[in-house]
């Protein structure tokens, strides 16, 4: 972090912000668990695809689905349009499947899981015990006894280690398990929804994921059920030269509600590793899904060596009327990020929200943003994106707001702010705005006038200036989400709240 210490910070940039960014730059999860692993042979080909399918004990239709995806992938080209640069990835020189030897026979309950694995998660601050509250989360000690329960699905390299609170969730009809289990136990749901939001041939990395995804999480919330606890998945890459390809499928049936959290870390290594995930969310009539991510993959060292290449496709489909989805992301890790959590607002009166804080330091590169596709009438979307760039990092917001001719009376508000700390980094904004009817209003602005008026008014009334008030409102929102994260590094993420909007570039 020497680079940042010497940086001349321009006037107007808050010292607290600089300190917060500096703090984020020290990676605490770079250690490795020594555990005996079992690998599939290096490289990817139809045999590997079959092998992964076989290891997961999948039915024939799933194997065929994967093979079709692989066939498609061989005809696709790697996308080059993002503002990120990295050496060519050799897709044949890495492992696509790695699992701890001790997971060979699937443990029946958490008690049977290898203690080494449990210790790994313990050390990460995610004890895989069915306990009420988790260590290290601010405010946890004051939580009522009924407290915040959080069900965790822990994914270690290519396999799910265990899922907590499954029985209690079952009582409410909620299905929360690893995707490999869902393929075996609930094939009708998986068949119906898998690939319906992110089609197999969507993009290069999503297609690769469709062929080789090894595990991930599956959530189904039945009609009218408010999920009694937060659900979360923790992804850990441990093995060297291994790509992680997980698949998450969340279905919120009519009138249901679920809040889902995702976290990820990886050991510190000199060689870059690939992570290509796909997340699909289906939101039916009157349902609501909140999806929050704290992405903290290893970002590479100060000289840009190593780190995770994070190429992720995330999309939510608001199929029903009055459905709602909210993406919140805190992106601090990864050497290269390529990620655009999107909302397809198909149902009338549906809503999509995207709140993002992306911090890049040293040689990190982030190209991230969202797509809001308005198809239904009276649909609303809001985008608030903050990019912070330090060291020699490049931070890009790339987004699309599209109002289709039939999306009458729709509304979008977009605000993207970037902050540069030092004169060797870059901040870029690449928004696409497509308005195809006139009753919709679309605003893309750096001015700060459209954050919740009531809250803003309250703050102004108490003597804050506009900028302070907006910062408080935006950060206050983040704080809510960050505090809810059941992971120790939520603490770290909370520091980001100190980051101010002052001196930012719109």
């Amino acid at each position, binding site marked *: 972090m020497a680079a940042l210490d010497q940086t001349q910070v321009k006037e107007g940039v808050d010292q607290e912000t600089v300190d917060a960014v500096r703090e984020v730059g020290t990676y605490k999860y770079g250690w490795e668990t020594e555990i005996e692993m079992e690998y599939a042979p290096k490289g990817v080909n139809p045999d590997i695809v079959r092998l992964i399918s076989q290891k997961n004990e999948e039915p024939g239709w799933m194997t065929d689905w994967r093979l079709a995806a692989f066939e498609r992938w061989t005809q696709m080209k790697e996308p080059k349009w993002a503002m990120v640069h990295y050496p060519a990835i050799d897709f044949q020189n890495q492992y696509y499947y790695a699992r701890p030897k001790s997971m060979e026979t699937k443990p029946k309950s958490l008690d049977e899981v290898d203690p080494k694995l449990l210790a790994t998660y313990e050390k990460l601050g995610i004890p895989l015990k069915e306990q009420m509250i988790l260590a290290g989360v601010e405010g946890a000690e004051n939580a009522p006894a009924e407290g915040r329960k959080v069900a965790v699905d822990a994914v270690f390299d290519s396999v799910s280690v265990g899922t907590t609170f499954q029985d209690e969730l079952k009582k409410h009809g909620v299905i929360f398990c690893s995707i490999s289990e869902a393929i075996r136990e609930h094939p009708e749901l998986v068949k119906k929804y898998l690939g319906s939001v992110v089609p197999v041939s969507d993009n290069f990395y999503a297609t690769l994921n469709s062929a080789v995804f090894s595990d991930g999480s599956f959530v189904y919330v039945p009609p009218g059920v408010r999920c009694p606890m937060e659900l979360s998945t923790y992804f850990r890459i441990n093995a060297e030269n291994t790509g992680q390809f997980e698949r998450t499928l969340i279905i919120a049936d009519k009138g249901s509600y679920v809040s889902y959290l995702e976290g990820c870390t990886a050991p510190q290594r000199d060689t870059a590793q690939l992570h290509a995930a796909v997340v699909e969310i289906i939101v039916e009539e009157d349902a609501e899904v909140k999806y929050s991510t704290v992405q903290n993959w290893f970002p590479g060292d100060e000289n840009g060596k190593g780190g995770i290449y994070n190429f992720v496709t995330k999309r939510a489909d608001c199929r029903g009327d009055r459905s709602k989805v909210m993406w919140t992301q805190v992106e601090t890790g990864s050497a290269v990020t390529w990620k655009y959590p999107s909302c397809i607002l198909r149902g009338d009166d549906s809503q999509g929200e995207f709140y993002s804080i992306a911090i890049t330091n040293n040689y990190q590169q982030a190209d991230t943003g969202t797509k809001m596709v308005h198809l239904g009438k009276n649909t609303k979307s809001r985008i608030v994106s903050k990019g912070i760039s330090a060291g020699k990092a490049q931070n890009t917001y790339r987004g699309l707001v599209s109002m289709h001719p039939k999306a009458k009376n729709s509304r979008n508000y977009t605000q993207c702010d970037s902050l540069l700390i030092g004169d060797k980094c870059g901040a870029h904004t690449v*928004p696409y705005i497509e*308005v195809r009817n006139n009753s*919709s*209003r679309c605003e*893309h602005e750096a001015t700060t006038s459209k954050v919740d008026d009531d809250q803003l008014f309250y703050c102004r009334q108490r003597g804050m200036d506009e900028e302070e008030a907006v910062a408080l409102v935006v950060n206050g929102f983040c704080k809510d989400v960050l505090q809810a994260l059941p992971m120790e590094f939520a603490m770290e993420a909370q520091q980001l709240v100190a980051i101010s909007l002052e001196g930012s*570039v719109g």
Partner: protein
Amino acid sequence: MALPEVKQSATEARLASLSLPTAGCTRDAREAALARLREMGLPNRRDEYWKYTRPDTLVQPEAPKAALFTADEPMMFDGIDRLKIVFIDGVFSPEASDDLSLEGVQIERLEDICCKDIHWAKELYGVLEAGGQQPVARPLAALNTAFASDGVAIHVTGKPSKPISLIYNHDSESSDAFLHHVIRVENEAEVTILENGPAASRFNKCMEIDIADGGILHHVRAQGRDHERRAATHMFARLGAESVYKSFTLTVNGVLTRNEQVVELTGDDAVAHVAGACVGDGDFHHDDTVFITHDAVNCESRQVFKKVLRNGATGVFQGKILVKEGAQKTDGYQISQSLLLDEDSQFLAKPELEIYADDVACSHGSTSGAIDETALFYLCSRGVPKKDATNMLTLAFLAEAVDEIENKALAEDIVSRLEGWLKRRS
């Protein structure tokens, strides 16, 4: 990377009917441009930079026919004292033009320069265009550099007493015209350049402008009249220290217009304002593509674009501010707004920022929507008929762009043109 075959064959098909003019001192530049063009190929609909505008008709070998505008409407800038240089379907007309001598400025035809081996224009012709091909390719400009046989070279050494007015008349239904102008404004010199007229059925124009330290150039352009015309224009400007470049474009009518402006601020304290207003109806398609590069300290740039669209018209804005490393104290502003007067019109925008310096103030905004019902109601409640009220609000919406014109008489001419257009269509 080798050119995809589709692109290569389309490019060769276009080149087949063209031949390089006698070149003289521009020969090297033309040959280099042709080589450049063959390397990048002409644009097609799959190019990201042409995402919102289909280049097919601009690229195809034959120019599509465009009916001539016959209504008896006075030409733009008629009431203004100016030096007229007239081109008919892309060919200079000595009869229709004024005498080209004017104090403080030297004007020559491109054709005459091409007979000479040594000329100041050699330092400029195709040079700014070549520089403007990075980081985004502009193949139609390279095509122009290679094949333009007419145009003018304007060397401004003082402060000419009246504006220089380039008039592009259209006389043949299937004309396909290229024009290439080079303008050099010397230290502390100042000039106003006017452009107007439908030009041709298909018009490809390129203008290279070099403004030395302290120089000032005002540019006011009106594109319009013939509805079926197509145009692709490029303006490349390079600004020295403390120089000023102010450009305004009014566009009415035209099934396809693509105006690219590439401005590079290379000297400290330079100022560049690029503005545009357009009003479109029906199959009108208008594309403003602007790329401003800040490569010096304490420069200011402004982009103000307003579009009024109705009956299915399409407006496109692609704007970019690039602040290079070290271009501290940059003040960059960009606004693109559209007023959609009915359900069928559309506005497609891509307002970009790319910033590599930390002590800068850059902002951009883009909005789109219908006319403000509350304001309309207010005016109607005061007894203004709804049609007039709509026109008033539309003009008010366009005002921010028109205000960028410093010369009052020119601004009034533009406003009266807009009023006329709105009245005829309401």
